[in-house]
């Protein structure tokens, strides 16, 4: 943009590049440099891609949206303190709180210092720091933000919700039926994934990565695998690259189908759920026949894929595409034509373009509010550079727009599957299934950006010479979408919350880690 300094221009002035970080550069900054970075951020459109801690350092990743340049910056903080980014990038706040809870890093001048993942239940404080501490003897209750005003009442919901869903706490403040404020409290499904990955061989850590968020198991496995492959400079067989994309698109279709039905179901239109859940089941069964697992868990591994298509696989996939092409459009026509549905979804749960941009929200949440960003296209990765697809973008920012983005994405993914099946490279000679062994004796740092059905996943990994993970940070897209759900529900009625929530469908497990 005019008048803005390029990202690399600033970083080259204030930092020194670190060796062995792939495929994007990493810069080490001093404290002064970090403060100048914060100043630079205030005047720029760079998106925050992630922020994560280590015992004595903090890292953040950025993208200059205009050029697509990506960089990581690091600050050593031997005293465990660093200046907060939250004032200039509000999306950093929860990540900083998480870094504090896990590593004891203090974000100075933060906009919100409350704990986030730590609920005083672990039996230890700052578990991943060099010196974990004993728990506080009598922890006080979590303080919710104050609300004042006439006629306001609060509705606490969760962590155990009324449906088959993940746990989290929502605190609604309402005036009559109208929601004035929603405050989320998450962290209930924190399983300590980052801690468990530390010191594990890559293959074991990959199994943990596959379980960060079960609905995005392919995408998270892919992000982890690509980060490891970047760190080690490994090239995977061409067939594996294409099979991975195939699995990723199947996963996208299955999830969007399930969510479209669930959103309609929450608008008391159960017919759609009955129909789309049948289509979803069809996708899962095809995935099962093709890759041996309905969700395709543990099928994408560092070095390639763990399962190849059986001989009849391509036939099954083309049948699936044909059936969805036949059965999905009539359902879309019904969705579009039912006044009772439109009445609930149009203008409900509005999120502005400004807000999705400020938070760098991706996936259908960002794209339904005009943020034209898709990791498959920028930074882009194989084989998508050889495939034709469109990224649907709308500007209405309501539940209806998020449904339509999903509908369009299903259509695009069907076309992608056809293209992939038509061009799937043959298996390389000498391999029984398409993957290459990972060599020990090489370490390095790698990062990957991968588009899940929910949005962009960032995974950063550091490997030692023995082939073990010394630090891995997987950042689920939900981190930047959850805060916007709080904004989406404001001014709507309480009964519209399920619709807003389902149209986002943020991951609890992926966020809580």
């Amino acid at each position, binding site marked *: 943009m005019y008048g803005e300094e390029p990202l690399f221009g600033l970083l080259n002035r204030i930092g020194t590049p670190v060796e062995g970080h792939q495929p994007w550069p990493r810069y080490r900054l001093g404290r002064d440099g970090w403060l100048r970075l914060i100043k630079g951020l205030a005047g720029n459109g760079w998106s925050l891609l992630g922020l994560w801690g280590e015992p004595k350092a903090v890292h953040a990743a950025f993208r200059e949206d205009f050029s697509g340049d990506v960089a990581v910056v690091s600050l050593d903080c031997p005293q465990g303190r660093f200046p907060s980014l939250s004032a200039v990038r509000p999306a950093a706040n929860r990540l900083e709180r998480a870094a504090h809870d896990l590593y004891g890093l203090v974000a100075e001048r933060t906009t919100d210092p409350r704990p986030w993942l730590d*609920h005083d*239940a*672990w039996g230890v404080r700052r578990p991943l720091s060099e010196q974990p501490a004993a728990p506080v003897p009598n922890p006080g209750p979590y303080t919710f933000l104050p609300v004042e005003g006439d006629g306001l009442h609060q509705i606490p919901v969760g962590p155990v919700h009324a449906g088959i869903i993940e746990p989290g706490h929502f605190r609604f403040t309402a005036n009559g039926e109208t929601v004035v404020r929603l405050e989320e409290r998450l962290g209930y*499904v924190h399983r300590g994934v980052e801690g468990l990955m530390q010191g594990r061989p890559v293959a074991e850590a990959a199994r943990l990565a596959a379980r960060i968020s*079960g609905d995005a198991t392919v995408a998270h496995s892919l992000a982890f695998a690509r980060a490891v492959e970047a760190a080690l400079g490994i090239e995977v067989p061409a067939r594996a690259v294409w099979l991975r994309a195939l699995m990723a698109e199947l996963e996208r279709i299955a999830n969007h189908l399930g969510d479209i039905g669930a959103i309609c179901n929450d608008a008391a239109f159960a017919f759609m759920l009955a129909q789309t*859940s*049948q289509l979803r089941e069809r996708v899962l069964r095809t995935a099962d026949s093709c890759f041996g697992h309905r969700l395709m868990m543990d099928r994408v591994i560092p070095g390639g894929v763990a399962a190849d298509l059986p001989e009849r696989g391509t036939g099954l996939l083309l049948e699936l595409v044909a059936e969805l092409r036949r059965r999905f459009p009539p359902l879309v026509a019904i969705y579009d034509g039912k006044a009772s549905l439109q009445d609930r979804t149009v203008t409900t749960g509005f999120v502005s373009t400004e807000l999705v941009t400020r938070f760098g929200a991706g996936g259908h949440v960002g794209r339904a509010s005009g943020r034209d960003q898709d990791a498959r296209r920028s930074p882009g990765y194989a084989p998508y550079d050889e495939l034709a697809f469109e990224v649907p973008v709308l500007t209405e920012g309501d539940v209806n727009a998020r449904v339509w983005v999903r509908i369009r994405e299903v259509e695009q993914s069907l076309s992608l599957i056809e293209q992939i099946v038509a061009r799937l490279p043959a298996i390389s000679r000498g391999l029984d299934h398409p993957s290459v062994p990972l060599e020990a004796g090489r370490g390095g740092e790698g990062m990957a950006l991968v588009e899940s059905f929910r949005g962009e996943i960032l995974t950063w990994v550091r490997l030692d010479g023995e082939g073990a993970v010394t630090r891995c940070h997987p950042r689920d897209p939900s981190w930047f979408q959850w805060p916007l759900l709080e904004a989406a529900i404001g001014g709507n009625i309480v009964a519209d919350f399920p619709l807003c929530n389902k149209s986002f469908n943020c991951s609890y497990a992926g966020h809580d880690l």
Partner: protein
Amino acid sequence: MLKHILTSLTGGPVTEAAPAPADPALAELAGKLDKAAKARLGRSLSIREVDAGSCNGCELEIHALNNPIYDLERFGIRFVASPRHADVLLVTGPVARNMREALIRTWDATPGPKWLVACGDCAVSGGLFAGGYACVGPVEEVLPVDLRIPGCPPRPTDLLAGLLALLETSAAK
């Protein structure tokens, strides 16, 4: 829409194990489950699902039980919104420590007689998450477990088979 309703009315059920059983195992299971369910609980069994730290993979397959293909409700088994309405708690996940208390409170809120089913490898053994600072481990370390359904995640047919096993053991009690 009308066309869809007509097709649904004239096309026969999509539910598996109905006119043209695509999956004989499921068909057999359907018959057995029906009988056992009646013997023990009249015609109904109410399940409250609790995610105690799952990756949400298990939840996806539990959801699938409600789709018209598995159609759990035809056996009189249904998912309910409150533990106060439940006979069974179906628990997933390696019991995240942050969820431990909520799980216990949900169990306490469930009226007897009640059963607890640990669903998925995480709930059965702690899975990959056992031993970390953030998880307790298997559900049985927190509450008495009546039935374990392994799998990561268990397939919908495994879940159905598991619920049948529960009905048979509880009938024998």
